[in-house]
């Protein structure tokens, strides 16, 4: 074994070991815990950067060993996994800082941060998994490591939400499990590969493959919150804000969406999936989800709930992009994986700041909040405008490519879906912005503690501003070589090679 075989494992280990160590810390060892958290996050980020640089030079990184005879555990870095690995490890660092600030006065912090690290391990594992069984392992590990975070408050309500979350995700996991095992029986051990691996199978297997595709997509659709499998997501809002941020932007929904990308592109191959007629139902499901999520978001007064339904809607842009034939649509879907993550985490960070410092959770209480929190609300505004698709924020880039892709693939009706969603997004975000900036406050704010020089504790404020800025920069500099868009372009080119 050399470094090329170890690196993917090390990237996982950097957060897994952090998590294990943190479990053994006492509640009072705050300094050590913070150090471990940040060290883990920085080491992971450094390793990822090292890997990216290596890959740019044409190196390959792969960990492979047998679990049982015939089943390999494979971690492999390819361009697609970079998209999610980069997103996870970057946002993990920011969310860790935010969470340390946010949970200052909470109980059971060692437990929280232990599972928090596990959660990121799982999400990076999902990204690096090189074959279906490895993917499944981390997909389930993600369920297990997020459950304790969802119920962290320990209230009856939190536990009820946890139960809903578990039933949905466990049932989804069972479907994925069935699909993966069945696939393995039919075609043996297969690795994910660009442009797919199943196109060569015997035509007599096509009906079975169709069923397997349905099983996998339904199972993954639970975490990706495809309607009607989205029920867990708004309920899971009882979790602490950093968890919601992580759940919605990086870990859970992205694992589902990323799984759909893997299945369509690297397992079936997009052309083969189209040949089997599997993509149109996915396009329709994604379109319905986009509109339904936005419609439901309109009527929510709870800020986090509104953001949750917005997630339901926005994540399906990814599924929409991958389900349309043509490189442009692919680029739109893939780049949204990153863009939605950065923008949505900004919004959740902001919601957390409002809730934690002045106890504002409902949109109807947000009148004039922009004066009390100009910076936070500024970041929120960038995120919200990005969600609507206003140029030059990142969300515009995604929508632009999705729209072009819809035309190129000969499905102009998708354009209507996108337009409708834009209108609805404007419908539920603009009133928030209007209240916050242009209305007068209803009265003095219920301050949690003394107001310092900054509008909020710096550990909460700084990550929020960074992600807000990133949402803007990834849009403005989308043409640069290092932007998510360029990476998505490279991936899309590979997926359509003959």
């Amino acid at each position, binding site marked *: 074994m050399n470094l090329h075989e170890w690196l993917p494992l090390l990237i996982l280990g950097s957060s897994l070991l952090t998590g294990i160590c943190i479990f053994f810390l006492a509640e009072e060892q705050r300094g050590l815990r913070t150090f471990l958290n940040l060290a883990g996050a920085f080491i992971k980020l450094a390793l990822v950067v090292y890997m990216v640089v290596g890959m740019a030079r044409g190196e390959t990184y792969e960990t492979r060993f047998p679990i049982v005879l015939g089943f390999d555990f494979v971690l492999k870095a390819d361009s697609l996994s970079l998209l999610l690995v980069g997103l996870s490890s970057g946002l993990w660092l920011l969310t860790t800082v935010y969470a340390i600030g946010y949970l200052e006065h909470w109980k*059971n912090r060692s437990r929280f941060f232990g599972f928090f690290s596990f959660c990121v391990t799982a999400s990076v594992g999902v990204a690096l998994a090189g074959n279906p069984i490895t993917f499944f392992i981390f997909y389930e590990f993600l369920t297990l490591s997020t459950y304790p975070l969802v119920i962290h408050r*320990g209230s009856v309500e939190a536990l009820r939400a946890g139960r809903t979350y578990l039933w949905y995700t466990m049932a989804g996991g069972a479907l994925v499990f*069935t699909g993966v095992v069945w696939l393995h029986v039919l075609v043996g051990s297969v690795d994910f590969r660009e442009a797919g691996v199943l196109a060569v199978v015997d035509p007599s297997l096509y009906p079975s493959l169709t069923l397997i595709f349905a099983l996998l997509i339904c199972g993954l659709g639970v975490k990706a919150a495809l309607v009607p499998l989205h029920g867990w997501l708004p309920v899971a809002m009882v979790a602490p804000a950093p968890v919601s941020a992580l759940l919605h932007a990086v870990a859970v929904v992205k694992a589902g969406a990323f799984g759909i990308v893997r299945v369509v592109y690297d397992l079936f191959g997009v052309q083969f999936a189209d040949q089997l007629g599997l993509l149109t139902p996915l396009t329709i499901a994604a379109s319905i989800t986009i509109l339904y999520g936005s419609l439901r978001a309109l009527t929510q007064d709870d800020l986090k709930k509104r953001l949750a339904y917005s997630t339901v809607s926005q994540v399906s842009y990814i599924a929409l992009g991958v389900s349309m034939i043509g490189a442009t649509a692919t680029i739109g879907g893939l780049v949204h994986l990153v863009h939605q993550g950065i923008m949505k985490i900004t919004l959740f960070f902001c919601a957390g700041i409002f809730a934690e410092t002045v106890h504002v959770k409902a949109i109807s209480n947000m009148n004039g909040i922009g004066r009390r929190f100009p910076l936070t609300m500024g970041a929120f505004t960038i995120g919200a405008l990005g969600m609507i698709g206003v140029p030059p924020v990142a969300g515009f880039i995604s929508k632009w490519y999705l729209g072009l892709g819809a035309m190129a693939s000969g499905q102009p009706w998708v354009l209507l879906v996108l337009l409708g969603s834009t209108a609805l997004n404007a419908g539920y975000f603009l009133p928030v912005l209007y209240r916050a900036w242009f209305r007068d406050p209803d009265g003095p704010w219920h301050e949690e503690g003394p107001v310092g020089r900054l509008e909020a504790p710096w550990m909460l404020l700084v990550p929020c501003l960074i992600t807000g800025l990133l949402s803007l920069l990834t849009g403005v500099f989308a043409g640069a070589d290092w932007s998510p868009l360029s990476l998505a372009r490279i991936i899309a080119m590979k997926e359509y090679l003959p």
Partner: protein
Amino acid sequence: MTSWLPLLVLLPFAGAVLCLLVRGRGAPAIGVATSLATAALVLFALWSLQTSGPVRVQVGGWGAPLGIDLAVDGLSMIHLIMTAVIGLFISLYANRYYDGYRGGQKDRARELFWPFWLMLWGAMNALFVSADLFNLYVVLELVGLSAVGLVVLTGTRDVLGAGLRYLLTALAGSMCYLMGVALLYAAHGTLDLFAIGALIQSDGVSRAALMLMVTGLLMKTAVFPLHFWLPPAHASATAPVSALLSALVVKASFYILLRLWFDVFPGVTTPLLGNLLGLLGGGAILWGSLQALRQKRLKLLIAYSTVAQLGYLMFLFPVTAGMADGSSLWLQEVSKGTVCHVLSHALAKASIFLSAGLFILAAGTDQMSAMKGLAERMPLTVFSMALAAVSLMGLPPSGGFIAKWLIMHAVLGVGQWWWAPFLVIGGLLTAGYMFMMLRPAFLEPDPGPGLKPVPRLLEVCTLALAMLSIGIGISAANLLNLVMIGNPFSIPGGGW
């Protein structure tokens, strides 16, 4: 070279006798020492098996059919190891557990636990290395009797009731088995496990023997609907005993069933019988899980979980029944999966019963409603429970996952897809009752009398078992290679 084989049996027996003679405070010390020595011996046996392959010896040099034949292959070895590892941890645990125990007749329980347990260990070791049907009967009986002795240790009223029910079932089970043995002996004049396999024809006598022996063993393994004795017995015994019974004792009779299936009856089994057994397994999973979901007492829930989990073992039979090609990939795979399930369930279930014991030590009750706030007060115990639960649910990367994967793969591979829903739904139901069990632990604790502190050593033993049940998932490849030494799953005949 092979003279160590009888020692595997004699050493625990000698320890048991010593414990009986010494009584009082000395018994635990002797018990723990014997456990350590036996575990070391098993380790040596493992080394010997890996260096010189499967062995067979004739004790006293008389040879079949008069003598006692002992044989060790990979399947025996994995069971010996399983018993030794779990037995060792339970021994360490029991040593301190009975000091803190608050139930009736504490001193008697502490003294008598050791002779019965060492007797049980010796008998199980004997069972795993026996190579003839009558010896198997004798040690099976011994396993049953010492297990009943362990159940009634505390002598309270409900324990005696459960113990009596257990005793009668165990006796009925062995009777059925013995009648089968008698039929086979009358027809073929030999009791050698592997010799009969070569002689046997698919005639009326063989079929009757098969039915009798399978029924008897199903009864002892507590396979639905013959499981009625298990929940009261496993739930009312003291925690270390519950762990032993659920983890190891039910697996002993299943081991004989495996041996019979592959070595004695391959020519006699039919797909019909296989499907029937598979159906019982499916029934066990559904019924056991649904019952577990209705329980209010922690130990009863765990006991019903055992009923459900044993169901997974039954899918081996429909997959392999009437299989002509003995080297079939699917046969190997389902067998490996089944053995993997035996192991991971044993480790997880032992751990979870020991966790329940810790909770009882601390709270003095096993009502799940009293578990409120446990995650805050006994985090290590709750963590162990959660790890064991992961393995029982069959989620990666645990041993339970590898087992479920292999069984599922084989079931779909031979085209018997109708067993797959049982496996999938079983996993979901397991998640249902396991999270129902863990749920109160995460609630805010009730104000009121706190929990008594429990010794750290006990928590460590519990955690170690839980981690092993996860760990075997990670090193499954090596373990399953070990099981295949001597090729125990081949049709027809054994490796000899």
